[in-house]
């Protein structure tokens, strides 16, 4: 039996978690799939999970658990592990998925393999996992049972819905005060309007080569292409642009239709965030910079000359 942790937020299913179901099925197609949903607000989510192939779904609730708590999710999973003895516990490699598994591993005293791309169960279990945000792959042995793993997001497609239902069982884990203390207390709406980086179809991104005062033409071009501005870490750590615009390993991972990298060298940690863009354009003075190796198109030259002219030409092409 495989246990899949399905995240939900105030009654809304986390779509990424559906990828963990597909991954679990590929690990052991013959094993029954059991799902865990935490929080009374997830009752409807739990009721509809059967269609994704679960035989059983467990819903963990407590009167004092009113919102998401990573520690509480880990505790609930630990209780299920002790009653059901699954061979593996699988979650999606999102912030929540990974932190829930970390709590589970800490409670059970077991190792956790995050960001896996492959898992073959046994003793020991063999995993392949992403280090350096996917710039390096690691083969490793994972000892102990169950195998606790998260799967890299966007590796597997989301599970398809079928005409099926599962038995939903509510249970009441023994949450500690500490588990309950970690709940979300409130939410604040993010102030910035406009398209968020992760959803943008076009990103005009700037690096050190742009300079503190140079982002005007990038904003104009982004506006003309109905996109948004991104940047490298050099730019955010200099305080030129807000961190919400940073693309890369410790910023946002993006996959727009068009990514225009202006004055960005293409360090592995930056590429980790933009490599999956459909089309990459580089504008750089250095024809040997690493960004050139991943770009589909490039203009070699000074962005301070190229960008204003590109803005004008784009405006003309759009007839405005």
């Amino acid at each position, binding site marked *: 039996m495989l246990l899949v942790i399905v995240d939900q937020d105030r009654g809304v299913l986390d779509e990424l978690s559906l990828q963990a179901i597909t991954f679990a099925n590929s690990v052991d197609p013959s094993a029954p799939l059991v799902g865990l949903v935490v929080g009374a607000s997830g009752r409807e989510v739990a009721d509809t999970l059967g269609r994704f192939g679960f035989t059983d779904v467990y819903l963990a609730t407590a009167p004092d658990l009113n919102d998401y708590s990573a520690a509480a999710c880990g505790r609930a999973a630990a209780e299920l592990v002790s009653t059901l003895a699954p061979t593996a516990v699988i979650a999606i490699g999102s912030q929540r998925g990974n932190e829930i598994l970390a709590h589970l591993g800490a409670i059970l005293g077991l190792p956790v393999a995050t960001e896996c791309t492959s898992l073959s169960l046994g003793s020991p279990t063999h995993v392949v996992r992403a*280090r350096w945000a996917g710039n390096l792959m690691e083969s490793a042995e994972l*000892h102990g049972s169950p195998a606790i793993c998260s799967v890299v997001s966007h590796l597997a497609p989301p599970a398809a819905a079928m005409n099926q239902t599962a038995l939903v069982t509510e249970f009441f884990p023994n949450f500690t005060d500490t588990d309950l203390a970690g709940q979300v207390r409130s939410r604040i709406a993010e102030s910035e309007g406009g398209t968020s980086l992760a959803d943008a179809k076009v990103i005009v991104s700037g690096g050190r080569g742009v300079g503190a005062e140079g982002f005007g033409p990038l904003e104009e071009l982004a506006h003309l292409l109905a996109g948004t501005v991104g940047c490298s870490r050099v730019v955010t750590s200099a305080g030129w642009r807000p961190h919400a615009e940073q693309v890369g390993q410790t910023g946002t991972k993006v996959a727009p239709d068009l990514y225009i990298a202006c004055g960005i060298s293409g360090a592995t940690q930056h590429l980790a965030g933009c490599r999956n863009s459909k089309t990459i354009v580089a504008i750089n003075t250095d024809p040997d910079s690493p960004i050139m190796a991943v770009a589909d198109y490039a203009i070699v030259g000074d962005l301070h000359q190229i960008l204003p002219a590109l803005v004008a030409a784009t405006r003309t092409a759009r007839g405005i």
Partner: protein
Amino acid sequence: MEILVCIKRVPLSGAKFSLTADGRDIDTSRLGFTVSPHEECAVEVAVRLVEQHGGSTTVLSLGVEDAEEQIRDALAVGIDEGILLVTDGEEWDAQATAGAIVDAIAESGKSFDLILFGNESADASGNQVGIRVAHALSRPTLSGLKGVQVSDGVLVGERPAGSVREVFEVSLPAVATVKDGAAIPRYPSVPGRIRAKKKPVHRSTPTRPLSLLAKQSVSVPESVGKQTKILGSGPEGISALVDVFRSIGVI
């Protein structure tokens, strides 16, 4: 307030990783070293909290002798003292690392009110050392924070989640894992560097337990060999680029 920040020395590669001959690790012979931006932010958060509330800060790293460089970098931006848990360079998995940190905290004789980590290390990306330490010390933990405040003995943490920011509150003593963006790290000043040389760095040499997540080998993923089309040098490439915009349907 007493704060501990835990950091990890990692190689800094530019374009692509090259591997050692046995395929078990990155060839670091020609690389510089650094810590993750997450940890740089954790250090900055610690320094700011103590500037605001008073107290003292300690930085800890488990790593090779040369990790003293990363400890001194943290001392140069205002951390008061360092702890180096010296290893022989073999990989310590997250459980082993957390265990060594818990032991070092006990040995330090300090009762840190707040223990800060990066959300995940740059290299292993395990996402779990801080949370494991919190469980071992029976403390509450908040992870993935991009905003950290303390008021009246309460840790208030924030992090983005879709179109909102989630807000958390737990009482100190607590553990928090921090992400890049939580603060803009300051650069070390020259006097800061000089002061850092005189600050104490305590050493101990923990014994590595068997890894339960044991790295066997590493590989660099095949990059999709792209044919880069150079559209031109300088402004001469612009009309071709506008044609590209048109052909992929963004104008």
